[in-house]
């Protein structure tokens, strides 16, 4: 099977599946080494961008999904009215960013950073599947630990957690130990 054909099949799989599809699944279907598949998809992503295709391949951790491009939003809006997805409140965004950078983290820790309760914000972002329970802290009360989901990456267009905006490293250690 030549590379062109593999790309073609991958495009067909992503198109059919619609939802995020994992590298493992793709590799096992076309029976090709995972790393090789990753390499091919990476080059597909570049090609789609270079050729200014109407669709793009987005990546979240090791999952891939087809989507339209943000710059075509106004055109597509003329075709169908997107159900207005309310954007996140500041409280939800703050809570989410704390979880994103400090995960896994308990609710108490989040609240101590924010200085306020965050039950409501937390339940909003759990409901939106941006955050999930990732375990329990092995101490009194076994509090829930929260972490972000793949949906979180997708929501903000991040390939992985490494893609998170850099925040000031300066304050992190120096001051905590002060």
């Amino acid at each position: 099977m030549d590379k062109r054909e593999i790309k073609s099949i991958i495009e067909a799989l992503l198109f059919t599946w619609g939802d995020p599809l994992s590298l493992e699944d793709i590799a096992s279907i076309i029976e090709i080494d995972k790393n090789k598949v990753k390499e091919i998809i990476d080059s597909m992503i570049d090609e789609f961008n270079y050729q200014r295709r109407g669709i793009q391949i987005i990546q979240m951790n090791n999952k891939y999904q087809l989507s339209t491009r943000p710059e075509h939003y106004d055109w597509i809006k003329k075709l169908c009215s997107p159900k207005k997805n309310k954007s996140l409140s500041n409280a939800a965004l703050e809570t989410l960013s704390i979880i994103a950078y400090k995960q896994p983290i308990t609710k108490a820790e989040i609240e101590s950073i924010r200085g306020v309760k965050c039950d409501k914000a937390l339940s909003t972002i759990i409901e939106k599947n941006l955050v999930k329970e990732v375990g329990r802290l092995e101490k009194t009360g076994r509090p829930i630990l929260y972490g972000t989901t793949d949906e979180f990456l997708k929501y903000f267009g991040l390939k992985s957690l490494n893609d998170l905006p850099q925040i000031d490293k300066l304050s992190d250690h120096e001051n905590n130990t002060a």
Partner: protein
Amino acid sequence: MKYNVILETFEGPFDLLYHLIEKEEVDIYDIPIAKIADQYIEYIEQMKDLDLDITSEFLVMASHLLEIKSKMLLPKKEPEGEQLELEEVDPRQDLINKLIEYKKYKEAASKLKSKEKVHSKVFFKPQEELDNFLEKDEPVLEGVKLWDLIDAFNKVISKNKKNGKKVNIKEIKRDEITIEESIENLKSIMKRKRKVKFSELFNNNMSISTIVVTFLSILELIKNKFIIVIQKKNFDEIIIKINKT
């Protein structure tokens, strides 16, 4: 100090404090506590006047600020006879650490917000119907838990429904029922009843467009030889029968 625009809502005491520090353009590492504490309290008073909801966290912070302020005013006691070489801890230090930590995530949140804005502008496509590939005799519910069902429901109602409805480009009112749907309905009625009176398929509540659609479906089914239409004589009731061929 008067605040003209104070309707801004704050996420919490840190948010408010941070706002004051920014507004006064003071060094976050060397906060003039007396000044900031006064402003903070003044702010809270105004929030009260405006009947804004002041959560207890704001009040706790107010008393904390006052405590730091008073500590800083106190002359430092030098316990006689004891030569403590311990470095004097700045009473503000803990607060400053927390503020800086908070600032980090506040900034990150605003960066995420701009990403959100861009990426909410992409559309996805729904999964293709994959049931074609299911083997007929496969036990379908194997491994499906009640929670899977609930998850599926939650997912579907929270999904960004881009295909939901099309903006009618030409401002034509969309049919209440499509021909395809109408044909399906008719087919199932015919399969059940085998034979119906033409008039039974219509009623007074039908809108013009639905009547037309229903009529078109009848024509279509006649064309497909799914049904046959019989009228014994003029003005007699028209009978529609399922075509057994």
